[in-house]
């Protein structure tokens, strides 16, 4: 009994060890989410609580930015969902490994799904296809919960530190910089680069349109470009996690 508990703890530890190198990079991003909330005058409960409720930095920063620009509330929500569409893709890929979990455990895994936890878990599960379901779940929770704790701490830090920083420092420019840090590692082939270029160009052209509608149109153009580029220029991309 004691031995089994020990082994289970090892699975958690392995997850924590895997995520550890990524934590310093998550910290400034979490702080930026807290800072962005402070800048648009969210109170402390909502400003820090949104990091637990949404738990997706890029979309939180975009949402607070839109709220600051007095966009329609429905556009703020839709923007969050559009940015977070990638989670549906992660969900599809990870679902093959989480088959058979209880509904409660599936919900917990889903709530904690992030770029980092997804990437680490998928790499590890692909390396060890023989791992039993419980072991996979413990490893995943080790990575995902660790990131959640760091994320919440950094959001609180950013909220309180950010509120006291002078605007002349230009810290608001950290937002697009953080998005670059998030986007560039995902540009893995010419099709994703083409998608990013067309989408970015269209977004600039469409920037005068109201309520960030240009963002939707540009993103759709980019996605269509990537899809067509991949079909015409590259061999059809095989899912490497099947």
């Amino acid at each position, binding site marked *: 009994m004691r031995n089994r508990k020990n082994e289970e703890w090892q699975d958690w530890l392995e997850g924590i060890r895997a995520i550890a190198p990524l934590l310093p*990079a998550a910290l400034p991003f979490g702080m930026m989410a807290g800072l962005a909330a402070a800048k648009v005058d969210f109170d402390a409960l909502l400003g820090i609580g949104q990091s637990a409720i949404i738990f997706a930095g*890029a979309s939180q920063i975009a949402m607070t930015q839109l709220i600051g620009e007095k966009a329609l509330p429905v556009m703020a929500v839709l923007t969050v*969902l559009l940015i977070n569409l990638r989670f549906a893709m992660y969900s599809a890929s990870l679902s093959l490994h989480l*088959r058979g979990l209880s509904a409660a455990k599936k919900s917990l895994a889903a709530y904690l799904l992030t770029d980092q936890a997804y990437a680490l878990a998928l790499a590890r599960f692909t390396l060890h296809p023989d791992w039993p379901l419980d072991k996979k779940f413990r490893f995943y929770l080790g990575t995902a919960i660790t990131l959640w704790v760091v994320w919440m701490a950094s959001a609180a830090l950013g909220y309180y530190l950010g509120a006291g920083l002078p605007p002349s420092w230009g810290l608001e420019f950290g937002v697009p910089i953080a998005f670059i*840090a998030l986007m560039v590692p995902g540009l893995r082939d010419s099709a994703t680069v083409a998608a990013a270029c067309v989408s970015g160009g269209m977004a600039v052209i469409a920037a005068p349109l109201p309520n960030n509608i240009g963002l939707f149109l540009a993103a759709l153009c980019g996605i269509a470009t990537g899809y067509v580029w991949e079909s015409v220029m590259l061999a059809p991309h095989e899912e490497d996690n099947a």
Partner: protein
Amino acid sequence: MSTSTLWLIVLAAGLGTFALRLSFIQIADRIALPRPFIRALRFVPAAVLSAIILPAVLRLPDGTMSYALDNPRLLAAIGATLIAWATRNALVTILGGMALFWLLGWLL
């Protein structure tokens, strides 16, 4: 915006995001995913993030767009992209990009 409106936005965004995360984990046991759909989803992060980044970089604090090459924001963003490409490290990219931005703002 009122506090209750802000809470509604955050709760709706949180619930919707949770639904996206749970979606396939919950149903993929039963339903086969259409391949064209999966292929299109692959381009969502690059397309959406790029559509946010470029206007944000070119838009000056006063709201006007600047296409000048001596715009420190544009140069710092290009530098940050190169740093991100070379290091694939968010911390280094953010620190490097901000350092470039401050340095160029001081020089130009």
